[in-house]
Every structure is written in structure tokens, then in C-alpha cells.
């Protein structure tokens, strides 16, 4: 039931957000093409902005995925941690240590800079 209430909350607030945007705008005329040009201090672009943008943190995202998978395991681990005691601590510690090696390697390879 609570999840349903949560869904209703999200939908209603989304609707409210869209309504606040749409209600004042519905009688406004479409902006002219001159207004629609992108703001570049008065300058002009050569092309559309959408392009194959060179994301320079791509390798960082791969490291992130490894840690995300660990995070997924940690959610249920947190709930049963106190029951399981030291053993649970050791296991997660090993997991973290192995992944930390990944961070050190990535750092040395310059993954966190805009390479």
C-alpha cells in the first residue's frame, strides 16, 4: 500500500510540475527563430550541439559499475550484519579491499583526470 501511495505522490508532483509550466505558457506565442538561436555571447554555432560528445571520464564509469555491484550486495548485508557478527565484517572487508586495488590502479593510470 505504501508503495502505491509513493507512486501516487510521484505522479501527482510530476503532474503539478508540468502544470505549473504549461498553464502560463498555453497562450504565449511561439518564440521567433531569432530568439531561439543558442546563446553564445552574440556568436553563432556551426552545427547543432548534439554530437558524439567526447566524454573523458568513460574509464571512471567502468570502475563505478564494479562498485555498484558491490553496493547491491551491501544492501541485504547491512540488514543481517549484526546477526552474523565478525564473519560478515571480514567478508565485506575482503570485497572492499579487492575493489580498492582497482581504485589505486585507476588513479595511477590517470583515469580520474580528463584524459
Amino acid at each position, binding site marked *: 500500500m505504501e508503495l502505491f501511495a509513493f507512486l501516487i505522490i510521484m505522479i501527482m508532483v510530476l503532474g503539478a510540475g508540468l502544470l505549473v509550466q504549461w498553464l502560463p505558457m498555453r497562450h504565449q506565442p511561439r518564440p521567433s527563430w531569432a530568439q531561439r538561436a543558442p*546563446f553564445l555571447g552574440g556568436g*553563432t554555432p556551426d552545427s547543432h550541439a548534439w554530437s558524439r560528445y567526447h566524454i*573523458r571520464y568513460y574509464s571512471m564509469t567502468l570502475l563505478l559499475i564494479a562498485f555498484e555491484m558491490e553496493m547491491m550486495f551491501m544492501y541485504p548485508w547491512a540488514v543481517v550484519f549484526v546477526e552474523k557478527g565478525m564473519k560478515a565484517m571480514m567478508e565485506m572487508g575482503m570485497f572492499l579491499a579487492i575493489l580498492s586495488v582497482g581504485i589505486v590502479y585507476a588513479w595511477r593510470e590517470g583515469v580520474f583526470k580528463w584524459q
Partner: protein
Amino acid sequence: MAVNWLRTLASRRSVPVFPVLGMQGDELLQQLVLSPDIELVDSPRHASVLLVAGEIPADRFEFARRVHDQLPSPFTTLWFRGEPWSHLENATRIDDLDILPTALVTAYSELMEGRRESSPRILPDKPPNPWEGEGDFGQGGEGMMGGVPYGRPMAMNMENDIRDGLTLDSLTFRLGPFFFAFPPGMSAEITLQGDLVQTWQTQLVPYPQSLDPVFFTARERPVPIAEIELARARHHLHRLYRGLHLAGLEGASLSALRLAQNLSTTSTLDGLRRYLSRSGFFRLAAIKGGELGPEQARRIGGPAARAAGLDEDLRSGDAGYRRLGFSPVCQTGGDTCARWWQVLAEIDQSLHLARQAERDDVTTSELGRIETPRGPWCAKRPEDASALFDELLPGLEWGDALATVASLDVAGLADQPVGTRPSGESRAIRGGTGNDV
């Protein structure tokens, strides 16, 4: 009716102004920033009033027209010491700096209350290119993208990237004269891949900047060192304001401006400098990169050269300064961080010299050569050095590139001091109204 009530409430806010800076328009900016009734915004979409400050040269009319049309309705324009374009009917022109804030507030409240019409659009309502394609839905046509979809070509110019050699799309554009992070009047054609600058080509050099009159009189007769050093400190504080505003330190930038406004021999920079070091401005903000080589440092001269380790300062040849025990301050490194340290050190040094000079009543002794805050002025005035950007900026990330632009004072010096009208030579390049070209 509800709209009227909303508009009345809207007229109670501070006036959102987008400044379009013409020649000598930079000076009024410092006044407006400190006024609580006016909010200077960075994007024309966030503004209701377009303030055209100073005279815009004819070669920048087209850019100004574009920015004018980019404000969303309702908006109005105000012209300060410049001739309004003739096809804007009720354009107001103000010439007196003291009444400018109230004029802006009046214009804005008239606009909100409906007593002033929103300014009409100047440029034609046409897409930049007709959308070409062959089929009914624009499909077909030449090239991978079928011509010019939605009025502009898609980014297809692929080149090897500078840093890692990957071949992805580059975006080429012209960043115009009215981008606030640039020196006023400068326009550049930039190619980016991602957010890294690949090429940078300055197309329009910044307007020549006017100095305090005391620097001009110092070439002819001895002036009290206190006066000239305070003028120098004021100039550096204005540059500091721009750099701090770019770095997101609003409060510090305003205190730098206030310090410049109330500058006297009893002022001190310690509080601001301590705050800047503690807040991490020198370690965390985007201020690495932009290192000047020795030949580039020699070309630009002035504090930027001293930040690169070149300890040349015309003041060391002056007997008055020698009496005060002057020696040039230098940094090593020559990058943006060093330049900001240098600016702070020079402001401090100027205040110190001014205090001493006032106490001992010392004047300059050398005529014909003067060290301006922009660089040494012997026979020729310091010239524009924006070609440096073409060499320095490729390979820098966007934030670092703009921080380098803010830290370098490249505009040449104008032949007239602050407070006079532009001379004959610059009048020749103006002229014409907004509706030609």
C-alpha cells in the same frame, strides 16, 4: 486580472539586467554590481532589461542584434552613452552614471506595469537555414544527415583529439563579444571536443581599456606616488572581481569591488587574502594550466610576465620608488594560480607603497616611461595581446580555459584616460545605425 496582480508583484523584485558592453562600458559595471536594486545576469534569457553600455563599434552590431533578440518577452532596452538603434521607437538613452540605477528601475517597473511596450524583434523570423532534404519529411538529400536538418548541419567534423587521439565530433562555434567571462569586446572562434578546447582563434580583439588619468599625467610631470599606486591597486581589484565572480565566490568579488571603491592608504587586503587562501581558491578552483613561456611573458609584459618569473618593472628605475625601497614582486610558474598570487601581491605592494609615500610625501621622478598595471609604457602604449590565447588555450578544459582568460589582462591601452569620450581614431570605426550590415 490575475496577470496584472502577478506583474505588480513581479515589479517589486530587483531588476534583472543583461549588460551589452561597448567601448568604455566596463566602468559602469562596477557601479551597478554593488547596487542592491539591480541584478546583473549572465544569460539574456534570465533578463528583462537589455542595457547597452557605451558605444558599440560597427563590426559588433550584428552580434548585439542577435543578443537583443535572444531576450524573452517582455523586455525593454536602455542605452547608456550610446546612440539607440533608430528602429526601436521608445528607446531611452541615459548619459549620466548617477541616475542609471534609478533609470533601470523605472524602465523595469514601467515594463511590468504595462506602461512600456515590450521591445520589438529586430532580426527576421527565419530559421538559419531552410531544412533541406528531398522527401516529404525532409529525408534523403546528400550526406549522412540529409542536408541541413532542423535548420543547422549536424556536427560531423571529426578530427583527432589533442589529448587522447580519439576521433569524435568537434563542435565549432564563435563565442561572441558579449560573453561576460571574456574581456569586453573579445570574440573567438573555438573548436571543442567534449569540453576540451582544440583550437582557439581570436576574431575580434577586446576594446582598448582606459586607465586612470594619473598614469597619463605621470608621463609629463611628477605625480605623488600614493595617487598612482592607489590607481594601480584599483585596477587590479577590478580584475580580481572578474576572476572571483567566475570562480563562484560572489561575496569575495563584491568585497573586492567595495575595497576598490573606498580605496585609501588605510585600506588593507589581508582579510580578503586570508579568506581566499582558506576557502581553497588557490588549490581547488579551476586555476591550473595556462602557463606562459618566457617569450610569451615578454610579449605581454606587466604582472603576467612577473608572475612567470621575469622580474622587469619600470618602477625600479625611478628614484622616487627606489627611495621607498621598491623591488619587483615575482612568482615562479607563470600559470593562472601564479598570476592570481601576483595580483594579490601587487595590490598589497601598492597599498604599502602608497602608505609610505603619503607619509614621506614622495613623487615619481622619471618622465616619459611609466609602468601601467597592464604593462610597461615607454614609447608605445602596451598593445593588445589576445593572440596569446590562440597559443595558450588549446588543450585546456573549459573551466581552466576561461580561468586563464580571466587571469590574463590582454586588452591594449586606449589613448585617452577614463572619463573622456572616445577619440577620433575610434570614432572612425563606429558610425551607422543598427540596421545596416
